């Protein structure tokens, strides 16, 4: 902490704020673009096909896990492309936390390395963790 390099170097709090801001912006733009492409393709193929959301029936396995969504996106099924976009959106704040962890590590800020690791662990557990 006493090393002035960390204060004046690339990993000052102000630089971290700038990185974080850019990451969030581009994450949302990318996720929205992918989702919009998938959505437009869906509407083009299925038109006004009215789905019934009154009755809850869950989603097929192909759309409920990270690995399956990624695998199915290659098939270019519109639902899978949308789900990939939504997954990118969920990943955006997670990437932000990972970036914060890197920044705190560069600043040798032990307390916040622990704090950030806990949050990142919980997020990854939720997204990738055991089937719930």
């Amino acid at each position: 902490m006493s090393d002035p390099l960390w204060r004046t170097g690339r990993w000052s709090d102000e630089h971290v704020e700038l990185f974080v801001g850019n990451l969030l912006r581009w994450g949302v733009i990318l996720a929205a673009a992918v989702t919009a492409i998938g959505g437009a393709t869906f509407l083009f193929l299925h038109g006004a096909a009215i789905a019934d959301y009154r009755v809850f029936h869950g989603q097929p396995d192909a759309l409920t896990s990270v690995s399956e969504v990624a695998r199915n996106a290659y098939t270019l099924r519109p639902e899978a492309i949308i789900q990939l976009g939504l997954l990118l959106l969920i990943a955006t704040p997670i990437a932000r936390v990972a970036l914060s962890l890197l920044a705190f590590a560069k600043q040798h800020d032990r307390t916040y390395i622990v704090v950030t690791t806990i949050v990142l662990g919980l997020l990854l557990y939720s997204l990738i963790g055991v089937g719930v």
Partner: protein
Amino acid sequence: MTGLVAIGSFAAGMLGALTGLGGGMIIVPMLTLVFGVDIRYAIGASLISVIATSSGAAAAYVREGYTNIRIGMFLEVATTFGALAGAYIAGLISTSAIAVIFSLVLAYSAFRSLRPREEHSTDGPPDKWATRLRMDGTYPTPEGMQSYTVHNVPTGFSLMFVAGILSGLLGIGSGAVKVLAMDQAMRLPFKVSTTTSNFMIGVTAAASAGIYLHRGYIDPVLAFPVMLGVLAGALTGARVLAGAKVPALRAVFTVVIVFLAIEMAYKGLRGGI
């Protein structure tokens, strides 16, 4: 139906931004009451839209220097634990119970939004936790950088756990509870509490979104018009914020919210949701 959902979501996102309540508070009642969507799908779609608006807005705020990343990061421990707990609870209780809890939170948020927020004094000795966690900071004002101290960290942390549970259970950003924690308990300046709360909402929602995804609560065909609609609405809302008659709009909006709350409670209790 996709077109109507997109238009409704656009309006919800705009109202959410203009009133500061967030789009999630309107999306879930709109989808369940107007479109007859199962509340689990509605919550899944709402969570997605909450991540989008929070991250989009945070991108701008963080660069302006109002957001306190340390406070946000520390309190996210409470909100992510809470969000996971909330998502688990959502799988255990009936949809009617979720609807009734939702209506209570809706009514509380409407009540809070009518009362003017008071700027608390940020003077006085800081909390020992705040010092240990180096939370005290500065933020830009027209008169230059203003420093502030942080108070009542344990109370704020506990309230954030509650905010996380509500977020994971109901698919909302829980802005009203977060503001309670940061304004009232921790006595942060408005700009700091608003932007830091918004900064945290994306992470909190992402924590429960993973579980909702695995459970099959996130339907791509329903979620895409909601997400894109709310995002576009929120961006538009933020743009017109300067020229809008916010107090009048807020009063009208509060009436709508109270009506939605009563309707949701009624349907929930009758078993209609």
